[in-house]
């Protein structure tokens, strides 16, 4: 949107208030369109309500008013007028909004976007950044265009950042894309906006907009040190991959069995039989969770592909939680 700054723009951006901060390059454009539709609607509504009230007051039945006055029962000219003006207004809305939409769904011309691969699952997000770093939160650099490639391993989710005015569904079996350029440093919430089950409202994450590349690089270098023990690394993965959302580490009940004291136990399975929680069973339950489900739980867990090193770390972590005899 290229509106001259000034009172008009201020009016458009004012809208009804309640707007979140404008943290992406398209947010102001969206708010302009919002403001335009808002004021057109507000004036129209005021007109409808005012006319209703005035007519009710003036023409209400009373002792002195028993018979309607003569007035035409139609007027083609009038009716065409009040068809034409709304038509014109909605076409302006369409044009303004579509122009902004096309900006919202593409990278600014002449600029290369950094790609981040997003994986949605019940009920967590995972972001594989361009430099190979994976994290539970999305990290980007102020002013640098970003392209998110979204996928889902189970059901439809939707990635929403109110401050960016952007939203895109993540659909299993295909990719979808989302583009933005952050224009405000800070941390903003990521919400899931496509209903996905039990913890839909807790499927939250953050997007961190770094002031500059240096700040981003510092974050990217964190945790790279191989100092972590296998168990600690497993604990970290257990959290990062979203396992902890359903499997508690302290023995409390959850969507799936708790992992506290799970190792070595013999579990009853859905459909009969038992399984001993050993390396093979854990491995299978991560790669193909539906195959052998512990009785009393539903088949809800998505398969979670892990590198062999990570698999070993998770197994080591679970072993560390074994019940002391």
């Amino acid at each position, binding site marked *: 949107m290229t509106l001259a700054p000034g009172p008009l723009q201020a009016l458009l951006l004012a809208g*009804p208030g*309640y*707007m*979140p901060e404008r943290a992406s390059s398209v947010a102001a454009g969206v708010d302009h369109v*919002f403001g335009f*539709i808002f004021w057109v*609607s507000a004036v129209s*509504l005021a007109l*409808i*309500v005012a*006319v*209703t009230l005035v*007519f*009710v007051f003036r*023409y*209400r*039945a009373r002792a002195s*008013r028993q018979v*309607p006055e003569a007035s035409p*029962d*139609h007027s083609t000219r009038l*009716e065409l007028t009040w*068809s034409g003006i*709304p038509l014109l207004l*909605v076409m302006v*809305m*369409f044009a*303004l*909004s*579509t122009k*902004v*939409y096309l900006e*919202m769904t593409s990278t600014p011309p002449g600029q290369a976007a950094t790609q981040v691969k997003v994986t949605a699952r019940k009920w967590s997000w995972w972001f594989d950044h361009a430099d190979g770093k994976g994290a539970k939160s999305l990290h980007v650099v102020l002013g640098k265009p970003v392209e998110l490639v979204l996928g889902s391993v*189970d*059901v*439809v989710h*939707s990635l*929403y950042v*109110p401050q960016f*005015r952007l*939203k*895109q569904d993540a*659909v*299993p*079996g*295909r990719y979808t894309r989302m583009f933005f350029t952050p224009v405000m440093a800070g941390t903003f*919430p990521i919400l*899931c*906006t*496509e*209903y*996905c*089950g039990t913890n*839909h*409202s*807790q499927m939250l994450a953050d997007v961190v907009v770094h002031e500059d590349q240096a700040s981003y690089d510092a974050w990217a270098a964190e945790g790279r040190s191989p100092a972590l023990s296998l168990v600690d690394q497993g604990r970290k993965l257990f959290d990062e991959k979203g396992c902890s959302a359903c499997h508690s580490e302290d023995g409390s009940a959850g969507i799936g069995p708790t992992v506290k004291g799970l190792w070595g136990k013999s579990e009853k399975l859905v459909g009969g039989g038992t399984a001993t929680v050993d390396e093979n069973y854990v491995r299978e339950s991560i790669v193909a969770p*539906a195959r052998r489900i512990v009785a009393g739980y*539903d*088949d*809800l867990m998505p398969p979670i592909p892990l590198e062999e090193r990570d698999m070993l770390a998770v197994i080591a972590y679970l072993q560390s939680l074994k019940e002391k005899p």
Partner: protein
Amino acid sequence: MSAVEHGAGAGGGSYLTSERGLRSWLLTVDHKRIGVMYLGVIVGTLILGGVFALALRLHLWNPAGGLVSNDTYNKLFTLHGAVMVFLFVIPGIPSALGNFVLPLQVGAKDVAFPRVNLLSFYLYLAGAVLFLVTLVVGGLDTGWTLYPPYSLEGSRGLGILIALVGVFLAGFSSILTGVNFIATIHKLRPPDMGWFDLPLFLWALYATAIIQILATPVLGITAALGFMERIFHLGIFMPEYGGDPVLFQHFFWFYSHPAVYIMILPAMGIVSEVVSVFSRKPIFGYRFIAMSSLAIAVIGFLVWGHHMFVSGQSRWANVIFSFLTMLVAIPSAIKVFNWLATMYKGVIILKTPMLYVLSFFAIFGVGGLTGLFLGALATDIPLHDTYFVVAHFHFVMVGAVMIAFLAGVHYWWPKMTGRMYDERLGTISAVLVFLGFNLTFIPQFLSGIGGMPRRYATYAAEFTTQNRVSTVGAFVLTAGLVIALYGLLASLGRSGRRAPANPWGAASLEWSAAASPPSHHNFDTPPRGVRPYDFSVLRKVSEEAGWVNAGGEAP
């Protein structure tokens, strides 16, 4: 049906008393009795859906929820949505009021296919019962939109299958009603009743029936496909087996968007009737209103993609659907302006139906105008699936449709029951419903603009105030509805005043040519076509005796 069956009630008083016994109701093919039975069941579903809604609002009093678990919350909003949409709002006006009023307004003895009409009622009832059965087998937590893969996951039990059968049956009930309505309007008018002599409620039902016939079968096939996919893993909607979940959304909205017009068009028809009668003036711009109903029905088919702007639908499809969506605003705008013009220089009588209609103007205004934000791509992207959408469609589906439904029930109540409801209680209920409604849903617009997603069992603390105001509003709204229901039912008791044939001074046939309540045959002599909005031929005798034709003879 044979001539004998129809003759049975001759001279037997009103349709309510012409035959007695439960059997005479359950097996009736009289459109009026079927309409009354629909009304009873539909009010029941409204109460059920309303109880779910209150539980939801109570749960949301605190940001962390707390009343029920997340899973229970999800089941509650799913059943609230499914019951309200499929069992209350869609069939509400056409099946209950439409069935009762349509043959009367068209001057016919019954609908074209009375036995099909009864079948349609039982299909609806079976659908409603199946929804109750899902409650028993553990509920359903898929959302009323039933999006796969979530809705068809391997872990799901019977609930989803039963619900899909319920949807299928309720859908077929709707189709058969539509077939009946179009055939009746086409073929059973008196020979001198032209197309432009039809009351506008009939034009609205006609347009509705077009959508019922052409869109509802797609709901049926969608439910059938979902059912089969869940059992046989077809690979049409489920990505696991090579299917496409976005394809389901196309199927679903191809019906469910036009379904919004199945809800709102009859509501608009009621408004047209009431605003004219209670302004004592012919409706302004009859033809524009009639044609705008048809335009809405046709354009309404072309806009389903606006529910899918962030679903992964392609960019250019989004642009096309946004354009078409903008167009559908025009016929609605025309209607609103024509209604306002009808009041100009009239004599406005502020009885309960008119009060409801006046509040309809403001509420439909908000509902329609906020639709513009969601039809425009740039603003829909942030607002989609937030409370802004929730507030918008409640303004249209609950605000506008339910308020018009209440206007219609009050308006036709004297004709249906032969009793006048209590005007004082009616007025109080109309005011409370209006206030409670706005108190409930205006804060939800603000939550949505602030970025609160829908279907959230827990939410960020910054939205607490809006949610609490909304919860309070829900109880005010409930109070209004309870008073309305009480006012209506109380009139059936001993204190209820008898209704004259034409208490409002309306000119359409159900008032000017039939008794209150009508006889089994509707009309004692075959009626002639009338100008439905020509009030000059009517003269008021008294509040008790109502209006009569100026010639003096009682209708």
